[in-house]
């Protein structure tokens, strides 16, 4: 016995079917929480180490600028490639992006910066511009005059016997101010960025 025509119509135009047909929308336009987005501030205090700017591969993507409340990293969204290296390199956890900080905590990994200063003694003429320009030296010996001569041995750099000598390389902050002030290009600062794993028992 054939069903009446209205039964077919009722079967086809079910309310649920019509709703699915007219208002079908699959995945909503939301970004998942684990997505590595543009780095955001966590509210911790920035100490102006500038490791974020040193680690950043994109030109002009991050700048640490001075605000009335202190230093603050700013991300330029048209330049940032969202690699998350600034988040990993920051020693204070000022920036956060996706799950980077959590995975760094669980894996006990971090990016560590170290700096190596190389002085080419055949080019160095002992003018002392590097030692005078160095901001670390300026903090240690505020009285340091031209020529790079100073009374204390606590300096990062000083001129000794007519050549620039590095006394405390561990004090270097990697700012490369000495490179900019060297007239001969004799001093070079290498920034070494390495991923290190710290096992829990050592922390």
């Amino acid at each position, binding site marked *: 016995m054939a069903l009446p025509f209205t039964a077919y119509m009722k079967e086809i135009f079910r309310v649920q079917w019509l709703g699915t047909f007219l208002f*079908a929308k699959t*995945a909503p*336009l*939301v970004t998942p929480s684990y997505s590595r987005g*543009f780095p955001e501030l966590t509210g911790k205090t920035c100490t102006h180490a500038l490791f974020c700017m040193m680690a950043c591969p*994109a030109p*002009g993507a991050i700048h640490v600028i001075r605000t009335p409340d202190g230093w603050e990293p700013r991300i330029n*969204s048209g*330049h940032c*490639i969202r690699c998350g290296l600034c988040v990993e390199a920051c020693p204070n956890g000022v920036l956060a992006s996706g799950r980077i900080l959590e995975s760094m905590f669980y894996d006990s990994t971090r990016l560590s910066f170290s700096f190596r200063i190389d002085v080419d003694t055949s080019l160095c003429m002992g003018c002392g511009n590097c030692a005078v320009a160095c901001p670390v030296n300026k903090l240690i010996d505020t009285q340091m005059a031209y020529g790079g001569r100073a009374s204390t041995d606590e300096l990062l750099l000083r001129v000794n016997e007519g050549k620039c000598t590095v006394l405390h390389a561990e004090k270097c902050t990697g700012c490369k101010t000495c490179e900019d002030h060297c007239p001969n290009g004799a001093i070079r600062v290498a920034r070494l960025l390495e991923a290190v794993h710290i096992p829990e028992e050592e922390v």
Partner: protein
Amino acid sequence: MTLLQAVKNFVRSKSIHVCYVDVGSCNGCDIEVLACLSPRYDIEQYGIYVHNNPREADILLVIGAFTPGWEDKLRMIWEKIPDPKAAIAIGNCPISGCLFDRPHTLIDPPAAKHIPIAAQVPGCPPRPTEIISAVLSVAPLVFRDYEVAKR
């Protein structure tokens, strides 16, 4: 606003034809634009259709850091698109040149120097959701009351 204009506004916001052009990118953003077509994001459910023909398009997605080969060709493609039209810069490259914006490279960013850009989607590459939401939010704004604004 006349009824005809209201109908045009509604239809233009629900049927957006997109043409994308790669002016020298690394293909990362092209892959993200193609991922919009895939079942996971499925841009046709939002009423966006992809043609690689500027004469059929409403919106031009500009991808890439503008290499010298595109000097007059991007402008030609832009002029072929019938009014009303808009261009969206996809990714960092047409905004700033991104990683390629270094000394001794031949690129000439931003793309806004060459054609008028209505919106920019930052990211390297941007997520497909960001591309879709940019197209969906820009198109109704640009195409709204086009005939009234032209008069």
